[in-house]
């Protein structure tokens, strides 16, 4: 008969205790290490988005009509720009995510809020980011509009004013925008912007006047309205972001109209009467009540009247 080994493997309490506690400590150490790698990635991407916000801050046109710049990033990066209109001026919040080890996208960074800029962008992804700035006036300068993009935009047969502008911005700058006469000249991966026809274009622009000062932009089966340089905002950003930024801009127009109205009363006391107070108050109220880009034309008409009156003044308000 086979004898059973009754002694077996004996383990003291001290051993069991130290193994369990050791395992817990080891688990916690690994968990903390993983967590810190994540926090480190989050910190780097947040710092980068903050730096990007700092880059965007001085983009203010003064003497020049428009400007462009290229930002080279160290690696593949996705830039997220979300517009919020939850207070008087609203804000654009920039965050980013970069490609880390193993082609994995890092966690989206903390959002950096920018209140005094209007950033129009859609899906921005890549190592090279293109930025183009253009002032928006109605009737006085309201702000500079910043367009951020990474894909190449192919403008097919645009109106002369747009063609000249894009070619002008492209002089000495890498803008990643081309102007062509027919769709066949665009590359397959280009974002095709058509100014006529209804063919397979990503974006369809309809101008209502020769200078393309007003019109509509159709993308993803939705139509938005534009006036002046907002045409680029409608082209470079998604419909939702565009509408949100238009509301923010119009709100600033309303506050600026109030400011000019107050300035007008100040200078009137010193013998420089403009007689524009009533119109400016009306513009402020109209702008304050606008609901979407479709209402932009109401404000534009009022702004044009103020502009022409100011032009004829001896003591100009702006």
């Amino acid at each position, binding site marked *: 008969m086979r004898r059973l080994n009754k002694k077996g493997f004996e383990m003291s309490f001290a051993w069991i205790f130290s193994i369990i506690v050791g395992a817990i400590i080891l688990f916690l150490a690994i968990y903390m290490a993983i967590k810190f790698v994540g926090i480190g990635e989050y910190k780097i991407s947040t710092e980068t988005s903050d730096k990007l*916000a700092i880059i965007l801050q001085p983009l203010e046109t*003064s*003497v020049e009509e428009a400007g462009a710049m290229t930002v080279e990033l160290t690696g593949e990066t996705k830039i997220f720009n979300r517009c919020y209109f939850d207070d008087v001026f609203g804000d654009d919040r920039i965050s980013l995510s970069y490609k880390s080890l193993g082609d994995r996208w890092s966690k989206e960074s903390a959002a950096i809020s920018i209140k005094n800029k209007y950033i129009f962008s859609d899906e921005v992804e890549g190592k090279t980011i293109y930025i183009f700035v253009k002032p928006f006036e109605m009737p006085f300068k309201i702000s500079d509009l910043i367009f951020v993009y990474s894909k190449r935009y192919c403008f097919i047969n645009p109106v002369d004013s747009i063609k000249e502008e894009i070619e002008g911005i492209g002089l000495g700058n890498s803008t990643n925008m081309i102007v062509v006469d027919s769709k066949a000249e665009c590359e397959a991966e280009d974002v095709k912007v058509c100014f006529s026809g209804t063919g397979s274009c990503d974006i369809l622009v309809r101008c209502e006047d020769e200078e393309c000062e007003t019109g509509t932009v159709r993308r993803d089966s939705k139509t938005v309205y534009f006036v002046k340089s907002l045409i680029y905002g409608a082209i470079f950003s998604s419909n939702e972001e565009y509408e949100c930024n238009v509301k923010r801009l119009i709100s600033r127009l309303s506050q600026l109209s109030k400011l000019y109205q107050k*300035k007008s009363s100040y*200078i009137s006391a010193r013998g*420089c009467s403009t007689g524009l107070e009533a119109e400016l108050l009306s513009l402020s109220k109209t702008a304050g009540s606008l609901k979407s880009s479709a209402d932009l034309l109401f404000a534009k008409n009022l702004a044009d009247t103020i502009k022409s009156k100011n032009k004829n003044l*001896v003591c100009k308000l702006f």
Partner: protein
Amino acid sequence: MKGKRSTRALTSYNKKNIVKSKRSQFKIQQMAFMLIAVVLFFILAGLLFLSVFYGGIRKEATESKQEKALVLISKIADSPEFSCYEESISCVDADKVLSLKEIPAYKDFWPVESIVIKKIYPAGKDIECTKTNYPNCNTIKLFTKENIAPISTFVALCRKEKAESGIYDKCELAILMVGIKSE
């Protein structure tokens, strides 16, 4: 006799066991204390690391705010709320800035805590500009009661004036100061 012997044997066995058990208990206590010490060491090391790590983040955040303020001050004079004309550079419209004081919505618009514009040439007494004493004053304060702010730049402070020959822009040298937001 047999019973007495067995009782003595049992007592000596118990004594041995008690001694052994006391030694084991002492060992467990020793290990428990050791483990507590190890855990405390890790906690302290972790806290030290976290304080260095987050201290660095705070420093970087302050530096970033300072950088933003420096960048902003170079451009704030050109923003529509301050600029004299669309084509002007580093020219602040005093009439606009005084009007800005009356619009509270602008309080959180720029990423700065305070804006102070002080006329430095021609120099005069420190008088804060209000609706009643303007333009016979030399300091315009926005969102603050302080007289100075840490980051500054020189600007031309202009306003409309009436002369016998007509309306003209009177410009004086001023210093534009901004204070950084502290959170």
